[in-house]
């Protein structure tokens, strides 16, 4: 019209017309490449199931394998039971009932998530073992002189491990169950009421069955963490797969056999993933009406209120307050802070780099999936998310075995034991966290946004850069933060793969505790816990906001 447009787009149009490449093909290729890179270590371990190991495997099978399987199963059973009771019970109480502090408990019950299980294990040992304050006080009170005079439960045992892990892992179940209760349409419950159910029976017969898939998903997550745990079981001398992998590799120097142990462990995990997927599949048909209102709450009085408060406050006290204050007390007493700065620096750099990398890799994966939601791309994204279910020790094996071979070929230590290899391990292990976050925040952007950007002349890459990324900035940051904190806490992969003489907060906590220097371990442990509080705060804010139907 008025000749303001300087350049006519016609030559470009003609040139572009020559290429009939389907749109977004480059992004699909990139996603494919990234998915293969991330899934490679897991596939390496799986491939090891068939590899020959010259008798080491049969030796393992004859000697320790039975104990590993038995201990892992008992641990899973115990923790599964513990987190179900603790998680569903507390979620039920704070969602359905009103009693003193119930509103504060809604978010406070998430706090134990900030505690790595191994840290809690150390503090419990410090509190409850023979030299600890509890037994000393008992001896002073009753005049006992030695351990032979009385019986006291042994903390460093399978039962102790179950206890400790239940205390820090129940929030997974709590979170899922609570979200499920809140998402349920109040209409469903009211329908049950009009059909003659009391509030209590409406809950048990309608709300609870509806929440079942969410509960199963939460338990599956908690059990994955249980199988991943190394610090607790190692310290409590409970032989499970993770300690077995560690010992077989570093103690016996048999990486191939370690990889086979890892492969067996992955079978355990696989069954958990399948259980979770199946329950999620059923969960899709949840909501039949769109009317949400806060669930009617039962006002609890007197003894009932006290019992409810005691039950809900117990995991918070035992999983967070007690170990947290114990750590704080040790730090104040000893204040052995020397070297903490370097440790924190190492942890921060590793976690920061891993967080940024995880988001940078998750973005093209999620974007390719949005551009082309084909089975191939969706499969790629799932494949790249596989690592979250796989224990850190298994991933370490899956990376180190090929890297060691590669280094041997090149005649030197180029990759093994470097920060690069370690970051790769973190990426494999925690990519799913950032992929989920990026996926869901990308899903909230209406497709007409990119259609608008494209008709206004922006290509796919530019649309991502100028429209999607600015719109998702907060979600990307919180995705990076989630990975950051997971990496801060991560122990098994870091222990196996860290460069020589390189320590992080987590590894130093572990080595100090292994040397029975529990009080010295308190400072790095407390630093990890404090960092872990950040995402918990994010989560509880999100939970407070996700309350359908507003405040009342």
């Amino acid at each position, binding site marked *: *019209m008025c000749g*303001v*447009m*300087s*350049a006519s*787009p*016609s030559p*470009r*149009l*003609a040139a*572009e*017309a*020559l290429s*009939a490449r*389907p*749109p977004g093909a480059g992004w699909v290729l990139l996603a494919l490449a990234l998915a293969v890179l991330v899934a490679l270590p897991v596939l390496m371990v799986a491939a090891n199931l068939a590899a020959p190991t010259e008798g080491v495997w049969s030796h393992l099978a004859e000697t320790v394998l039975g104990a590993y399987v038995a201990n892992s199963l008992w641990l899973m059973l115990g923790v599964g039971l513990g987190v179900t009771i603790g998680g569903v019970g507390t979620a039920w109480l704070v969602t359905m009932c009103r009693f003193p502090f119930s509103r504060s408990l809604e978010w406070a019950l998430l706090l134990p998530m900030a505690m790595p299980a191994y840290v809690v294990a150390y503090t419990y040992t410090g509190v409850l073992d023979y030299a600890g304050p509890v037994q000393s006080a008992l001896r002073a009170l009753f005049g006992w002189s030695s351990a032979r005079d009385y019986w006291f439960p042994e903390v460093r045992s399978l039962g102790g491990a179950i206890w400790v892990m239940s205390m820090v892992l129940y929030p997974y179940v709590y979170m899922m169950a609570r979200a499920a209760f809140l998402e349920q349409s109040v209409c469903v419950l009211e329908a049950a009421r009009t059909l003659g159910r009391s509030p209590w029976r409406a809950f048990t017969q309608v709300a609870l069955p509806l929440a079942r898939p969410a509960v199963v998903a939460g338990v599956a997550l908690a059990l994955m963490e249980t199988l991943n745990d190394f610090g607790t079981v190692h310290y409590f001398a409970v032989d499970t797969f993770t300690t077995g992998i560690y010992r077989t590799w570093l103690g016996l120097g048999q990486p191939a056999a370690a990889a086979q142990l890892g492969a067996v462990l992955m079978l355990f995990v696989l069954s958990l993933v399948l259980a979770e997927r199946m329950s999620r599949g059923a969960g899709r048909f949840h909501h039949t009406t769109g009317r949400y209102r806060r669930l009617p709450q039962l006002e609890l009085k007197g003894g009932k209120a006290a019992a409810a408060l005691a039950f809900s406050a117990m995991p918070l006290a035992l999983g967070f307050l007690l170990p947290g204050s114990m750590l704080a007390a040790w730090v104040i007493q000893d204040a052995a802070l020397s070297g903490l700065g370097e440790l924190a620096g190492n942890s921060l750099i590793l976690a920061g780099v891993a967080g940024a990398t995880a988001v940078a890799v998750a973005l093209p994966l999620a974007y390719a999936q949005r551009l082309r939601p084909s089975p191939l791309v969706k499969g790629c994204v799932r494949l790249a998310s596989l690592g979250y279910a796989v224990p850190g020790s298994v991933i370490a094996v899956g990376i180190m075995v090929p890297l060691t071979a590669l280094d041997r070929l090149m005649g030197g230590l180029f990759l093994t034991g470097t920060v690069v290899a370690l970051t790769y391990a973190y990426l494999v292990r925690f990519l799913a966290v950032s992929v989920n976050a990026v996926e869901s925040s990308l899903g909230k952007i*209406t497709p*007409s*946004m990119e*259609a*608008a*950007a*494209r*008709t*206004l*002349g*922006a*290509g796919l890459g*530019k649309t991502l850069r*100028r*429209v999607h990324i*600015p*719109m998702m*900035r907060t979600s990307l940051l919180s995705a990076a933060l989630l990975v950051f904190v997971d990496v801060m806490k991560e122990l098994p992969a870091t222990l196996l793969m860290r460069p020589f003489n390189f320590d992080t907060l987590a590894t130093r906590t572990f080595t100090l505790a292994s040397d029975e220097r529990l009080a010295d371990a308190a400072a790095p442990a407390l630093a990890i816990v404090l960092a872990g509080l950040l995402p918990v705060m994010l989560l509880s804010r999100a939970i407070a906001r996700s309350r359908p139907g507003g405040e009342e």
Partner: protein
Amino acid sequence: MNTMGTDGLIIDAVSHDYGGKDVVREVSLRVGPGELVCLLGPSGCGKTTTLRIAAGLEAPRKGRVFLDGRLVSGDGTHVPPEHRHVGFLFQDYALFPHLDVLGNVEFGLDRLARPARRERALAVLEQVGMTAYAGAWPHQLSGGQQQRVALARALAPHPRLMLLDEPFSGLDKRLRDQVRDETLHVLKTSGVSTLMVTHDPEEAMFMADRIAVMRAGRVVQMGEPAELYSRPADAFVASTFGEINMLAARVAGGAVETAVGRFAAPGLAESQAAGVLIRPEGVSLTPAADGEAVVLVSHHLGRSSLVHLRVEKDGMAPQHLHARLPGTLCPAEGARVRLAVDPAQAFVFPANGEGG
């Protein structure tokens, strides 16, 4: 004034499917330079898909699309939307929430130098009367204001073609009439060729130079609004542009006999079943004690009145018929009236045909 090409948009025998389900079948249409064409049809008729194909947001399975004489889709070619130079106005406006009004309008102008970009953005904002809101954020704007900003954003880079997807459906009735009027003027002054999608026939007639009526993925009829109204190609098109009375009849001697009179049936075979469609506004009434119809209900609707009639004719089943009378002329209920039907408002189509 308008120097942008000579031949606008040509869609040539385009077909498309989603996962094996045909949504657009052999659609051909043309939007001439400066012309405003409406795609009109019920939801799911493929009109939005046709629009997205024109934008390049979908690659059609078959057929070709030309923009200003250049092939942009088909024959193994697909020019992506960012190189087509079209403006798209979305149903939900799709304003970028992280950019302010000016930033939104400038988004498509980044090939211009900064001062020129600003100048052009402010000029289009002026055109839609939103200059005062240049620094506002999308969430601070009302629906009508968002629509205007979206229009300015789409128009800013001087598109060869404007594509509008139900652009007024998010607005309430009163605001809609006003925004529609303004949009029409903005589009006509900028002289841009426009293809617009709507399901509202009144809106289509208000906006369009020509209308393409779509049904089940096909263009059933295309023409000027008056032509579609007075010479509908079939019962579906006739009923699209307003309520219709439908009477069943059989062809005898080149015509059909109904309770309300005899209508010529050109092109229909002898003794073929036929449907007679009569617009309520084509029925006029005169009070008469021996009239063939009884007034059942009579409602005053503002500018017109709607009268429900029962027509009784010897040897025929009683018929229910609506008549729309201008003004406040309301016959009393129970009164007997004589009918007259304007032949220009009555259409005879084969029965079992499309529509009915």
